[in-house]
Each structure stands twice: as structure tokens, then as C-alpha cells.
């Protein structure tokens, strides 16, 4: 068990961009860098990073998952906080990894890396003690709590930051505790249930008539946006880091 309360809080941070941002959502990774630098962090991006290995872990292929995690642990070795713009990858680092290594000789090494890992909002609010965010972002936001942030401080942290931005209105929607249906390889192994869950989520989200759907995880948002687009009724999705970054621009505090 990793003691999350004992994670390092320094301002030199290693950024784990996540494989999804690496492949699809570069703007989310950029926004992450910009907001971290805005709060005075030195952001280091280890070039050799790949993935947290969760796809293999969730598929039960733990041997393959450990191979990826061992690589990741080497790439992110050190003392500084590791910050990730994803609750799911962060949970893989500080929880999933301890499961897949529970019978392995190098568990302690893996736990040391996990014990330095923060989801982005958790780091901003509970690591750095930031309680409000400057700037303006005029939008009705439906905030989808990504499932892998359950039981962590990420969701309240995101709420706190978003609510402090001028112009942000967070709108509630039905069955908010429910999953979007993505589940990684679940979405291809159980395509019917996965889509049905996503459609139900979209139905509730649309009923709240938001300007955009916001979350801590691009995996959920990729699923929802992908369903909505195929359905012919696209929805706008944003990572909360993009909103924080855009709010900064509104105050003219950041230069490109």
C-alpha cells in the first residue's frame, strides 16, 4: 500500500503525458505544461516515456503489463513528483502497479515511483496548495467524474479550480456516478454494453444542455466524443487543463 499523503510536493516535476495525449491529444499535454509553468513549476519531459501499461494490466496480461511498467519506472526514476493529466494513468501508477507486482521482487522499486505520482489537479490543489484559478472561461460545463478518480482527491480538486474561474458554470446531470462505458479493451471486447453505457451517459449529459463536457481523462472523453460523432450529433469535450490554460489566456498571463 502506497501512502499517498507522503508524496513529494516539489516544483520540479516529471511530466507523464500519457499514451493518449501522445497519440491524439497533444493540446491537452501542452495545456498541462503551460499551467504547470504558470504556477512556477519546472516541467521535465522524459523523452523515453511510453505508457503506464494499463491496457495489458486490465486485460489480465500482467506479464506484458509489468514489462511496460518496469520500463516506465526506469524512465521516471528519481525523487521529483511525477504529474499526469489523467486520473486513470495516475491510479495505475500508485495502485494498479502494486497489484501487478504484489508477488514480484522489485515491488519496492515500483512503489517508490508510484509513491511520487500525482494526478494533475490533485497535485495543483493538494500538492501545491492552489485553491483558486485566475481568468475567465464563459461556459456551462458538465463535469464527468472519471471513474479511476473515485476514492482520490482529484474530483473535488477539479471542482474547486473550475468553480473559481470567472464565467464557469458547472451543471449537474442524472446518474453522474455512472461510468462512460470505455473501460479500455472492454470497449472492444464488450462493444454492445460499452456503447449502450456511453449512449446513456450522453443522453443524461445532453439533457443538461452544457456547452462542453469536461473531465480529467481523455479516455472517457474520447469514447463519448467518438460515440456522439458517429451518431451525427457531435459534442464538445475538453480536458480541465485546457480550460485552466484558456482561462489564463483570457487574462493575458501566458505567452505562446
Amino acid at each position: 500500500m502506497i501512502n499517498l499523503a507522503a508524496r513529494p510536493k516539489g516544483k520540479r516535476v516529471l511530466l507523464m503525458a500519457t499514451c493518449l495525449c501522445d497519440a491524439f491529444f497533444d493540446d491537452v499535454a501542452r495545456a498541462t505544461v503551460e499551467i504547470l509553468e504558470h504556477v512556477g513549476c519546472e516541467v521535465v519531459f522524459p523523452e523515453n516515456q511510453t505508457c503506464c501499461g494499463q491496457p495489458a494490466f486490465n486485460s489480465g496480461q500482467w506479464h506484458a503489463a509489468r514489462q511496460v511498467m518496469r520500463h516506465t519506472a526506469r524512465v521516471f526514476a528519481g525523487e521529483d513528483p511525477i504529474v499526469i493529466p489523467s486520473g486513470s494513468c495516475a491510479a495505475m501508477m500508485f495502485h494498479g502497479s502494486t497489484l501487478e507486482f504484489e508477488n514480484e521482487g522489485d515491488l519496492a522499486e515500483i512503489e517508490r515511483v508510484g509513491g511520487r505520482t500525482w494526478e494533475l489537479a490533485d497535485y495543483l490543489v493538494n500538492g501545491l496548495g492552489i485553491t483558486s484559478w485566475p481568468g475567465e472561461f464563459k461556459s456551462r460545463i458538465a463535469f464527468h467524474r472519471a471513474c479511476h478518480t473515485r476514492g482520490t482527491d482529484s474530483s473535488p480538486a477539479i471542482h474547486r479550480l473550475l468553480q473559481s474561474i470567472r464565467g464557469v458554470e458547472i451543471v449537474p446531470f442524472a446518474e453522474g456516478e455512472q461510468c462512460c462505458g470505455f473501460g479500455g479493451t472492454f470497449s472492444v471486447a464488450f462493444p454492445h454494453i460499452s456503447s449502450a453505457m456511453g449512449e446513456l451517459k450522453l443522453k443524461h449529459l445532453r439533457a443538461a444542455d452544457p456547452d462542453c463536457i469536461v473531465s480529467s481523462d481523455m479516455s472517457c472523453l474520447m469514447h463519448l466524443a467518438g460515440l456522439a460523432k458517429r451518431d451525427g450529433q457531435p459534442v464538445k469535450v475538453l480536458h480541465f487543463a485546457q480550460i485552466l490554460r484558456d482561462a489564463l489566456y483570457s487574462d493575458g498571463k501566458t505567452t505562446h
Partner: protein
Amino acid sequence: MAKQLIDTFARRLPGDIRTAVHDNSAAGTAARYRALGDDYDDYDSLRRLAGAIRQHSIENLDHYLAQAEESLVRNGAKVHFAVTAGDACRTVSDILQRAGVRSVVKSKSMVSEEIHLNAHLTAEGIESVETDLGEYIIQIDGDHPSHIVKPIIHKNRRDIARSFEREGLGDYNDDPAVITRRAREFLRGKYLAAGAGITGANFVVADSGRLVIVTNEGNSRFCLAAAPVHIAIVGIEKVIPSDADLAVLLNLLGRSATGQQLTVYTEFVSGPASAECSSGPREMHVVFVDNRRTEVLASNCREILRCIRCGACLNVCPVYRQSSGHAYRSIYPGPVGAVLSPLLAGDKFKELADLPKASTLCGACHEVCPVDIPIPDLLLRLRDKAHREHIPSPGTPPMGGFAVMGSHPLVWRAAMNFGAAKDYVPMLDKLPIPYLGAWLKTRTLPPWRGGKFRAWMKSRANRKKEEYS
């Protein structure tokens, strides 16, 4: 490509059943939130305490089970231990045959479903009538429960009215009050005629030897009112240390199961009827059933034995809501069943190894569990077990290539650049590409941006270097 059975079941599920299961489950979840939130500022702490009590109970089961036996015997009950389902059934039928009983009334018990007790008793020529209304309807329909607390969550009142008409319980009438009255009238006669009452038990208290039975219909009390013999069938994991623990567990059970502060009836049975009682069972038997629970206890999924069968994890589970309990092909459906059923299957683990896959690992089950069972962790351990035992998993991509990419940064970066090719493949969603095809059938993929962020970081770093130099 081979399909996951649960996904196929969900796809074929009639819309009215899906709606019934979804709406009833969602209502159950909402009731739970209200009941816990209204009464406790921090019910998460209570869940963790209950989890610790149950974990302590199962980790010291050897002690508490022996203590429970001693207490029960002291209270005048006879105690039996059954290793297998067959042993348990024979133990029950032997007791009944020795007492010359030809008909029994039963209150709801999941372990009796697990060991197929009714089928065994019927084969032995003993009539066994379910008296919980839901279970009675299941019995006359030759159906199986699809929820551990609400066995007929998949049926509507019109289905039930037709069943009653078929069974000769009156003309078609789908008014729930009429259905309930007819069942009550029919069952009253059965209670009076029965030679034995069979119940389960929600808890067995080791230090007092008390059985605790919770119901909402009072049927278990009727089962014990007139019958001269009481047999309780209990999984060995139901033992808890002391009466004081009930203060935590009962408060959570009713609220988690049905959103009630307490179920309508909570019975404490401390032994057979005393000589001063004018009626009630003179003979009381407790049959402790193992049926592979000791194997579960020895496994890395032992936390599942904490379960107090509230059904909150079924209610909240998005996969259960889409697929219904019958999709799980076992007595225990939903998240708890996806862990417990394959484990209880023993050497038939393979046949149910797909159940732990039927989850997005969203963790809602863990969040609502009154005894804090880390169900997603257990599902993951079972996925690992299935993979190590080389059990095929339809639709799940092999991860060997991913492992190579994920541990070789040059290969990874090359793939990031190469992935852009997907945006230039015409009719990508029409191509029979394994796994990707399943995604693209109902969803699009965003445009490929592989390598863009890395390039941005690099150019930024160079710019900064220039600024400083």
C-alpha cells in the same frame, strides 16, 4: 470473431427487461444514497469499519466457527458441517427423513440456490415451497433469481399475473395488491401443513450463538411459527464475532440493500422453542456449508467472503444494468458474482472465467460496498489467473506487441509517427480490422496527432535555450 457471452446476452435482452432492470437498480442506488446520507455524516468510515469486522471474521474463521458451534449447541441446536453442495443437500434431506417430514416451507436463502436444494428435495419426494414472494414466483415459473435481494427484478406485474393464472391462483389480475393477497392465502395453508421450516441466516453470532435473519415480508417468521423442525442453511463465512458487531452490520445492510434503516423484520433466533412455548420448532439444525469457501479463503480473492449479500454492487453496476442478472449464468450475478461465481466453480473456473472481464473496472461497486470489498482489484486478479491458465478471452487483444512497444522507446516513437497513416485509409470503419473494427462500428477515432506534443516540447526547449544564450 468470437464474442463475449455477456455482451451477446445484453445485445439480445428484450428492451422491457433491460428497462425494468435498469430502472429498479437505479432506484435502489438512489435509495441507498438517501438512506446513508440522511443518517450518517461519514458513512465511508462506517463501511471501512464494517469491512474490518468482516475481514477479521473470515481471517479467524477457524476460531469463530468453532465458537459458533459451541454456542449453538449450548443453545440447544444441532450443528452440521457440509463440505460440498451434495453433502449439504443430503444433510438436509436426512434430517427431514428422520423426522418423517414430507413438506417444507422455505424462506429466502442464496446458499440454498447455490446447492440446488429444491431440486434435491423434490427428487427425494419432499415438497419444498418458497415463501418469499419473489422466490415463490421464481419457483412456479421454473426460473432463476436475477438479483440477490430482488430475485424477480427482471419481471413485471403482467408476467406475474399470467403465472398466477396458470397456477390456478385466480383469474388474470395484475394489481400488485391482489397478487400479494393471493400468494398470502395460498402460502398460509402451506405454513400450517409444513413439517419443517428452512431458512438461511444473514449472520451467525459466534459468542451468543444467535442466528440473525432479515426479511421484509415476515415469511421466515411464519416458516418457524408452526413447523416442528427448523433447519438453517448457512455459508461458513456468515459468522461474526459478537452481537455488538450487529450494530454496525445491520445498520449498513438494510440501507445498502433497500434503502431501509432496518428491514421490516429482523429476527434473532437463539435456539429451538423452549418447553414454555406453545408452538415453534422443538428441533433446530444449523447446516454450515463450505462448498469451496475454504478454497476462496486460501486464494488471493478472500476479501469477497466479507460480502453480506446486500446487492448494492448489482444496483450500481452499469454492466449489470445493461445485461441483467441472468447474463452471468450463475447464482450470484453482478460484480460480487463476477468474483464469487468463478471461484465457487472450482475446477469449472474456466466456464465462468469471462465474468471478471465484464467490467469497465469503474469501481462503483467498491464505492458502495458496505463491507469495503475492493471488487475491481479482485476482478483484475481473476483476469490474471485466467490468463495464466491460458483460458481464451474473446475480443481481448493480445498485448505482446504493446509490451514490446511500451518498453522500447524508439519503437514507440516510430509507432507514434506511423499511426498518422490511419487518417489516410479510406473507409477505415468498413475494414474488418480486429479490435479496431469493434471500436469503429459505433464510434469514431479522433485525428492522429502522434509526435506533435513531443515536437512542441522540443521546439519550446530550443527556444528557451536561445533566449538564455
